[in-house]
């Protein structure tokens, strides 16, 4: 990141915060996690099972299986 340029964070209410990597995150239990990915997605819904990283747990759910997911 060029010196003097603020780091850009993309915020959306319906998904994770996107931060340019690398990042180091200090968690409340005193541990630190880091990622050197070009962009990291930070969980804001607090449902992620790999918190502080997003794992798409913020998504809406539907009762019925959908066609075309392969899954």
């Amino acid at each position: 990141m060029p010196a003097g340029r603020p780091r850009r964070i993309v915020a959306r209410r319906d998904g994770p915060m996107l931060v340019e990597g690398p990042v180091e995150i200090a968690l409340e239990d005193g541990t630190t996690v880091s990622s050197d990915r070009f962009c990291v997605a930070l969980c804001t819904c607090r449902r992620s099972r790999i918190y502080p990283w997003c794992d798409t747990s913020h998504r809406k759910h539907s009762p019925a299986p959908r066609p075309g997911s392969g899954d």
Partner: protein
Amino acid sequence: MEPAVKRPGAEPALPPSRGEISAALIEYLRDAGPLPDGAALAGADPLGDDLQLALYLCYELHYRGFAGVGDDREWDPELLRLRAALEKPFLAVLRARATRHGHADEALDELLVEPLDGQGVSHFLQDKGELWQLREYAALRSVYHLKEADPHAWVLPRLWGRAKAGMAAVEFDEYGAGRADRVHAKLFADLMTDLDLDPAYGRYLDASGAEALAIVNMMSLFGLHRALRGALVGHFAAVEITSSPGSRRLAKAMRRTGAGRAAEYFYAEHVEADAVHEQVVRREVVAGLLEEEPHLDGDIAFGADATGWLEDRLADRLLAAWRSGQSSLRTAV
């Protein structure tokens, strides 16, 4: 003389044929006969083993080729003519049967809703998959994952601006972000080793049925044709959107069966990476392409729909076999 030691990246051998078309093509690649004639092509099932294998062989000349087949065969005009004749009915059947949406946002929004009670392959493997089923799954996914991200790299020169920058950033991550040991294809090879599979490129081509080959052929079809750049982007978006939750289930399956650390890591990495890739692909690649070329909206939707349709066909084959305790592969692994 020392026996020749096969380097890990060596070209695979040509596989056995699966019918008239692939048999003639293989003979032609061995300089031992003419290409299949029009009559053979006219009667072929576009989704069947014979045509899908022949198409796979044509495309593979653009990736790693085959042992004993000259590199310059990639641009053999006769082979390109045959490839076009195979692509035409395949693309036609995808357009006619897979298309469900006219707009990119409709097709992708549907994929962003996670079913509560999913019935797919990753659900099956998470809940009750046994090690032999995980091995089968890895063997047939290896026809793609050992060249992970390669079919999508073809699209880069066809994109501009935000779409190009976003696509290149995601591909960079797929290719290990500058580190050979983190290339996703390498992570998959490590997974295969954990599962006692041979990670040699092309090793399980013969084991993989038409449903698995069709998915990789679709990627090559969309990637190699500039005219299908919208479909390639839609396909890639569908993969990245559905990958993260599916990978979480597969990581669980690997952990539960004690498949090994590398086997679990491949999917765990994809939970985290594809949660990012999904955002970049939707916000930069899809939105950027739509801004530059709004007329590709329908093609982006088609690429996403075709992906889901072919994945569902593969899922049907796998689950039907596994639920009756049978192998889903053509040859044992």
